[in-house]
């Protein structure tokens, strides 16, 4: 038997707004959480990009300056 064949009709009386409210609260909580996590992910990506830039700059300066010690000229990756 199809699930939908025995489904009762959705009544649109006063209770509807409360039920909708409860499920919207649930959905809103999940969405707010996902939005916060998305902003944190963006921050982590920024940190990673900044780290890549700093590592490249350090490599560049090590290559440009021949008087640096061997330890400083070691490849970083």
């Amino acid at each position, binding site marked *: 038997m199809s*699930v*939908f064949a025995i489904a009762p009709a*959705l*009544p649109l009386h006063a209770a509807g707004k409360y*039920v909708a409210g*409860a499920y919207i609260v*649930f959905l809103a909580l999940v969405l707010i959480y996902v939005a916060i996590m998305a902003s944190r992910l963006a921050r982590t990506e920024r940190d990673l990009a900044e*780290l890549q830039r700093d*590592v490249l700059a350090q490599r560049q300066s090590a290559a440009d300056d021949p008087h640096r010690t061997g330890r400083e000229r070691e490849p970083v990756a």
Partner: protein
Amino acid sequence: MTTYGRGLRGLSLATVVVITGALALVFFYAPLDANQGFIQKIFYIHVPLAITALCGFVFGGVLAVIHLRTGDRKWDIRSYVAIHMALIFGIGTLLTGTIWAKASWGHWWVWSDPTLTSFLIVMLLFATYQPLRFSIEDPERQSRYASVFAIVAGAFVPLNFLAVRLAQAYVHPRVLTLTGGNLPGPMRLTFLISLIGVALLYTTLWKYEMAAKATRMQVRALRRTLLGEDSVSPLKRSAAPS
């Protein structure tokens, strides 16, 4: 990818599928309750949220026990995230519960109901977890004290649940009991699928949060290794473990 990121995609997909299925069952399959009518549909989100939140608090306590036994900070982070997620689910429980109370009893809150009041007490207890962590600056002491708190508060949850179950004068509906309760088959199936969906959501968000924390820590450790200790700015005081 961190350890926590493994399997996250599959878990997320499973969560979406089960929650979508649960919503379809709630609105198109489960029959209307003879007494409460359409309002009873709130039950399928409110109760799974409550059960998952309470289990999350206990889970946080169990992880805190492992932290104190092993001394490994990763268990403190896991415990922190478990309690953090349970608090979010608890807020969802309170909000959906008050909506149901207003629709069913005509009041947003009924102080004489032991279930409502006890859940609020549990929430207020765990609401002090983050301020407690924030009040302790030393990370080692912070994690140790927080674990002790998580264990004591986590043990309070089942005791509180038992006390409420034993209370006689209640108005809260009792549809789930050890002897099977009084949910008819289609309602029981819908409830179980909803419970599985919400539990999966909790697990997914827990793993997601852990993966995010582990990634941030790895970026910081990588910076320290590649560019030296001076390149890393000192951590600000925080309730979150670092």
